[in-house]
């Protein structure tokens, strides 16, 4: 209202106004009875005597921007009138609430900071109605929530009540590796199916069998502490079995046996490598108390990350390369059995574990 208008109005019609300032600096005046409907403003006026003039405008909390303030004032303007029936109020509320989700959330926040409980209840109810009955994906979509839980965490929620960031980190790693390995396995299966003809010489095969006798023992599926690991391993084994079954269709009996052994061997080697990986992780889990806390906050230790990435690349390469190459590798792999290097601040126990893998 301009000064001129105010001068024309009769004194009886003069309402008192309260001056409010939002976080962005803009100041506006609002009818007293409307503004006083908000407990926070009421408190400021009564207890601190603020709001009577432009210089002493009440600074509103940061969560109240001008758009939200205008909405809240609309709400107050309607509800502060005493004569309205419950039906009228309800129908106003229903219409008032119709807005997009983003504004609804902002409005809830703003109303909460002004301690306007009826409006907070109204908006909470509206938000609850939005969430109710929807699938997690839909809810994430509506509220722009990041999908940052691992598959494992989703399947068995709230297993770790300690909320240790290192456990979360490991879970994330674990899940990533699992996904990658699954993909590798899929590719491998496709390739394995295509391979029907084997043109290796018998000599090669025999030397292979002889040379690798000792190896099949070392590569066991180590007892997994976590159930899902076993689940994963079973998955691997079934796909290995499928591969073996495919090869069993070969007419040549000797070749068959060799192939099965070989495929089983290779897959088990692969599995062994990954169980290595996960047993090591497990060890890290066990020895977490010995780890230097400063090293791991929410970023993966770069050295560890490198090692893991290299290991995965290795494995992927092995899976994707051709048979002869693979054979060569397996031969060399079987003889040498290099220990998996994981240097985590020279944690002796890890190294020990890796070495024991050799036999």
């Amino acid at each position: 209202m301009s000064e001129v208008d105010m001068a024309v109005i009769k004194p009886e019609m003069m309402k008192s106004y309260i001056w409010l300032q939002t976080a962005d600096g803009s100041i506006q005046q609002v009818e007293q009875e409307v503004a006083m409907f908000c407990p926070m403003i009421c408190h400021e006026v009564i207890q601190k005597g603020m709001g009577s003039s432009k210089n002493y405008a009440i600074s509103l909390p940061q969560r109240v921007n001008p758009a939200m303030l205008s909405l809240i004032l609309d709400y107050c303007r309607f509800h502060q009138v005493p004569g309205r029936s419950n039906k009228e109020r309800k129908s106003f509320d229903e219409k008032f609430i119709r807005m997009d989700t983003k504004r609804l959330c902002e409005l809830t926040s703003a109303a909460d900071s002004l301690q306007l409980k009826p409006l907070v209840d109204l908006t909470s109810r509206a938000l609850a109605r939005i969430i109710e009955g929807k699938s997690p994906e839909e809810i994430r979509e509506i509220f722009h929530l990041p999908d940052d839980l691992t598959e494992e965490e989703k399947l068995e929620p709230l297993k770790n009540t300690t909320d240790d960031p290192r456990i979360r980190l490991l879970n994330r790693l674990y899940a990533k590796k699992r996904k990658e390995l699954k993909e590798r396995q899929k590719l491998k299966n496709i390739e394995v199916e295509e391979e029907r003809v084997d043109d290796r010489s018998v000599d090669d095969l025999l030397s292979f069998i002889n040379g690798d006798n000792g190896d099949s023992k070392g590569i066991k599926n180590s007892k997994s502490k976590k159930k899902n690991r076993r689940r994963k391993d079973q998955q691997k084994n079934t796909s290995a079995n499928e591969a073996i079954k495919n090869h069993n269709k070969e007419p040549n009996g000797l070749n068959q046996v060799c192939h099965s052994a070989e495929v089983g061997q290779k897959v088990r080697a692969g599995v062994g490598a990954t169980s290595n990986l996960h047993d090591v992780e497990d060890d890290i889990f066990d020895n977490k108390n010995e780890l230097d806390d400063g090293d791991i906050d929410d970023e993966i230790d770069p050295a560890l990350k490198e090692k893991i990435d290299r290991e995965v690349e290795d494995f992927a390469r092995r899976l994707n390369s051709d048979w002869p190459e693979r054979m060569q590798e397996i031969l060399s792999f079987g003889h040498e059995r290099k220990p998996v290097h994981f240097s985590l601040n020279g944690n002796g126990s890890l190294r020990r574990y890796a070495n024991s893998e050799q036999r």
Partner: protein
Amino acid sequence: MDDVMSRDLISDLPQSIIESILTRLPIRDAVRTSILSSKWRYKWATLTQLVFDEKCVILSNDRCKVEDGLVNFITRTLFLHQGPIHKFQLTTTHLQCCPDIDQWLLFLSRNDIKELVLELGEGEWFRVPSCLFNCKKLTRLDLFRCEFDPPPTFKGFLCLKSLNLHQVLVSPEAIESLISGCPLLESLALSYFDSLALTIRAPNLKFLCLEGEFKDICLENTPLLVAMSVAMYMTDDIAEHFEQSSTCNFNRFLGGVPRLERLIGHIYFTKFLSIGDDLGRLPITYAHLKVVELNQVSFEDMKEILVVLRLITNSPNLRELQISGSSNTLAAIDAPDLDFWEDECPSNCTFKQLRVVRMTDMSGVPHEMEFIKFLLANSPALETMSISPCVYVMDGRLNMLIELLRFRRASAQAEILFIQD
């Protein structure tokens, strides 16, 4: 990966708002928010109100599966929960007597439970374990279909404000001592009890709701009572007991409730009040009584009519009156003493505030008509008088209307609505 521009809208709201939202969701939806994102993993776990009802049951044809599913869900939810639980409600027909419930109650008793609602299915009634009596902070207790047996050392719930026992097997002494042992009790509801004789001593009681076969009720110390609703069923031995009784039930029941604002009576309530010798003038005035609803009043029983009159003539601020008649075949079929209305009926009482009167199930018996006449003549502020005849009366309706037309009305703006069905 998420678009950097679309910021999370909701996860950073204050926990009180998140709780406010999650509390309004069915419990399964609330728990499922734990897989939305890492921030949401534990937001549900600190909810202080857990309500398990039919919505969280996954239906299937296999009854055992439904039961097991529900038990597992509740157990796991409680196990994963963090912090105090103030309200726990279990309303389901799928569970009856189940050992898991004992364990849940034990868990709750260690977690500052304040409001407990247990409504279980028909079948074997659940026997409330002793750990319930250790819930010191209990403010509300609702039990449906349970066996309630307090240990002898139990003194009462010192914080209890609301008690609702519906179809609960409990000894009368236990109920009386429970009520007396809860000094803060404001709301009491007892339903479906058999032949209960009860004396209620509850100095803070405001709301009373009774339904069942009550042999005797005495409101000995309930000075703050504001509203009551009583439905009394009659059995043969209760009727016998009434015949032999000489104490004035009206005084015993309504003698100590000066703050009463609403009174609702069902079934045999008026009859109950009519039992006993009339002790003359009522010692108190119901200055706050605004709404009276009495159902199944038999206008063929003088004593019941006297009860109604006594009540309304001592309520100067009565605004609303609703009476439903009953064709009570038990009443004596004497010639109605219509002289009463001329001679004995208090003539100088005016219902200055009475605005709305509803007479339902009217059979048109003489006393009913006289009563209506009495009201019309003494209610200067009356706005509406609505009369609905009883469905069984078809022939007498015309006579009723003819009589109604004749009645003098103290209020010029009174409308008489004759409601045909």
